[in-house]
């Protein structure tokens, strides 16, 4: 019989709170985190707002090593906070507990932000105004003098997980993936497989990301992926609404401690729920757009159901990827209908991103944490800013107001640029 995997701890650093309870409460109350950029002066950018983590202090989570880790990008700092909270919640923070070689880390993880002034100034110095091309030699000579040798290593994508392993004495598999907006859900799915396969007993799984820097925002703006509703930031993220015009970028980190069931039982751990299904597919269609009928998404959901040995009627709630882009929301709706048939209209579907914004590589894990609490409390979070129905999006999106409903199995979708599709299924734990 295959090993069962349960959730025994959770931690988040998000724009809607620095604990799972605060994040969930905000979602149930329909509060949005979206507001004007404060991280840098973005007043003349095409998009002038975002969903930012506020009031985060690394010192809340670290004492002795604060100086060392203050050079890290905010992505890593958020991850440190979320992991410490999750391990404490699971009762695993003390390194003397358990076999640490059997405990690992798997994140969907982003890059640390480039040194923007050093990069732009050095390119500027090296660029010939007549040809508008940059001379590499002049660039190298300029930038090598100004790069901060303590900060530069932290741009590298393996540093976040490496620091978590080191700080929290987790010597098992230490892996990260970057499959765009699907990354943290994929990390949780693959971490579950590592536990099922016996490579580890406990994994700190999830993600961390912040693209709230000038080049990140400009890049998304140029792809026309972001909402530009600058006159009304708080209503800009409106998944499934006819007037949606793009996603609202967010940032943050989330960690779930997932654990082999017998391991959790033996140490008397509190069990939040069971991870029962994982599906991972590729669209093989286009770089950014999802397949319009959700070809890959359909199989991700179907594979997750099969993996969980569940039927479509067992699913009580779907936490959608629901980005508020035209392409995602219509394709995802089509895919849900293809998988669930007529039943699709009876299953509540909502998008956490309507309030939280899009945490990119950390989106899936934050949404899974919301699902865990929704299942336990019996109250499903709404999709806010839903005003104008779209004929292509005709499911029950829990418009604007949270809803009481007992659910035993939840499906959570995460899709990403590059045609990445991930579905996870969370189930009420039964012995």
């Amino acid at each position, binding site marked *: 019989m295959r090993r069962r995997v349960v959730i025994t701890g959770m931690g988040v650093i998000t724009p809607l709170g620095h604990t799972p309870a605060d994040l969930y409460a905000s979602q149930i109350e329909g509060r949005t985190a979206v507001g004007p950029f404060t991280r840098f002066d973005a007043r003349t950018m*095409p998009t002038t707002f975002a969903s930012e983590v506020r009031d985060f202090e690394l010192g809340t989570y670290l004492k002795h090593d604060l100086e060392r880790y203050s050079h890290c990008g905010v992505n890593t700092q958020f991850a440190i906070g979320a992991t410490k909270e999750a391990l404490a919640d699971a009762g695993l923070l003390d390194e003397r507990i358990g076999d640490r070689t059997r405990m690992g880390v798997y994140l969907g993880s982003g890059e640390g932000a480039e040194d923007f002034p050093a990069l732009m100034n050095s*390119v500027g*110095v090296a660029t010939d105004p007549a040809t508008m091309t940059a001379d590499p030699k002049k660039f190298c000579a300029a930038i090598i003098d100004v790069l901060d040798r303590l900060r530069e290593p932290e741009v590298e994508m393996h540093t976040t997980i490496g620091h978590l392993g080191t700080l929290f*004495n987790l010597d098992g598999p230490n*892996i990260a993936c970057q499959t765009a907006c699907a990354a943290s859900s994929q990390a949780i799915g693959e971490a579950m497989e590592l536990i099922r396969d016996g490579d580890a007993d406990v994994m700190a799984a999830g993600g961390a990301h912040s693209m709230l820097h000038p080049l990140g925002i400009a890049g998304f703006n140029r792809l026309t992926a972001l909402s530009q509703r600058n006159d009304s930031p708080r209503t800009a993220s409106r998944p499934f609404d006819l007037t949606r015009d793009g996603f609202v970028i967010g940032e943050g980190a989330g960690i779930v401690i997932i654990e082999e069931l017998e391991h959790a039982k033996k140490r008397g751990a509190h069990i939040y729920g069971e991870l029962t299904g994982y599906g991972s597919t590729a669209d093989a269609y286009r770089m950014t757009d999802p397949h319009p009928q959700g070809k890959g998404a359909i199989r991700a959901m179907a594979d997750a159901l099969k993996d969980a040995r569940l039927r479509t009627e067992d699913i009580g709630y779907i936490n959608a990827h629901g980005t508020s882009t035209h392409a995602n929301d219509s394709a995802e709706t089509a895919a849900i209908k293809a998988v669930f048939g007529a039943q699709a209209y009876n299953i509540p579907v909502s998008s956490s991103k309507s309030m939280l914004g899009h945490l990119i590589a950390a989106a899936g894990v934050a949404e899974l944490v919301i699902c865990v609490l929704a299942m336990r409390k019996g109250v499903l979070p709404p999709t806010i800013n839903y005003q104008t129905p779209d004929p292509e999006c005709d499911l029950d999106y829990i418009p604007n107001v949270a809803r009481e409903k007992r659910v035993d199995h939840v499906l959570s979708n995460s899709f990403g640029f590059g045609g990445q599709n991930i579905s996870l299924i969370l189930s009420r734990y039964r012995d």
Partner: protein
Amino acid sequence: MRSRAVIAGYGFLTPIGSTPEAVWESLRTGATGIRRIQAFDASPLPCHIGGEIPDFVAKNLIEKSYRKSLNAMARPVQIGVVASQFAMQNMGLAKGAIPPERFGIEFASVMGATELNDLARMSKVCTTGAEHPVDMEKYGRDAVPEMPPMWMLKYLPNMPACHVTILYDIQGPSNTLIPNDAAGVEAIGEALRILRRGAADFMLVGGSEAKINPLSLSRFNSFFPLTHKNDAPATAVRPFDRDASGTCLGEGAAAFGLETLDHARKRGAKLVGEVVGYASGMDRGHTGAGLARIIRNALADAGITPADVDHVNAHGMGVPRFDAFEAKGIAEVFGTSAPVFAPLSRFGNMGGASGIVELLCSVLALQHGELPGTLNHDHAYAGCPIAVHTGAPRPITKPYAVKTSYTDLGQCAVAVIKKWDE
């Protein structure tokens, strides 16, 4: 019984060759790909040597139907896609030959560095020299519209895998792993697990990295232990050697087909090797004990003992403290006479691609029945108590090889491969 995972063929784009034959010939004869950097004048940087893929012209090599997408593909993406094409051609597999839903991909690749010219116009309108802050008002208003529309997509880590899924209609599991030098072997391990659990029948496994560009090279010069022996590129990188002075960067890409033995038999595939074991984990502080534990776990996964192993294919960066760590871990499992081969001194450090390219060197060695020597290991170093194979190729005597990989933060991944044999 769990599925066996066999290697059906490979493709290379490396500083020492871009066909399996050329790579093998260079390995046998001891040719190096490390030179003074040719792509641009890197002389202001303390290390300006590296391993470059010579004569790579993407538009001549990329699948014709895909040429129009080249302007949205940075060099690491281009070489990853072309190496994947080479692998598919090497296996005689066209689009559709593998049922799409049972065909997956695992890639090792990291965020690409921006090309300077993508930011040239932008920087001119919002900067006034190194002493002054960037004018954010001008940046938002005047610079952002000058950013190439596809800028972000050119550099994303999952773009090699994305393009390859489109080119070959790959619709199964798709993942891109990013832990630098450990990512390649981790990708192999994840593909192995996917095949064993039956989530796919065929996995394309690849890695690509291209850090010989002004931004990456400058950044790595600021914090990574690179050699300053620019006057003697061919002998600068010295794995496990008394005179090791640091490593250098290399660019490269490789991909191979990994499939279940049942699937390979059904389609009558010609096979070149087998992946039989894998393990990964952390060695905090590079003690060697962690690496030893992970090597033992990989051997246990393969169901073999150290005595079954012909050689250990090490990362061998040529950085004294990292070499000492790796040697200690290897010696703890295999003893001080452990036969070690380290290919990196021919390529430079290829980061995400290194695990794949380096492992394939041992696949070639097992296939050809001889193990090439390690370049630039001339003097034993007391800190590295292992037996590094140098000089002329020697016969392969046992069917297994072990590939070790690690990062500067202590992530380790180890794979065990076997010479192909029914």
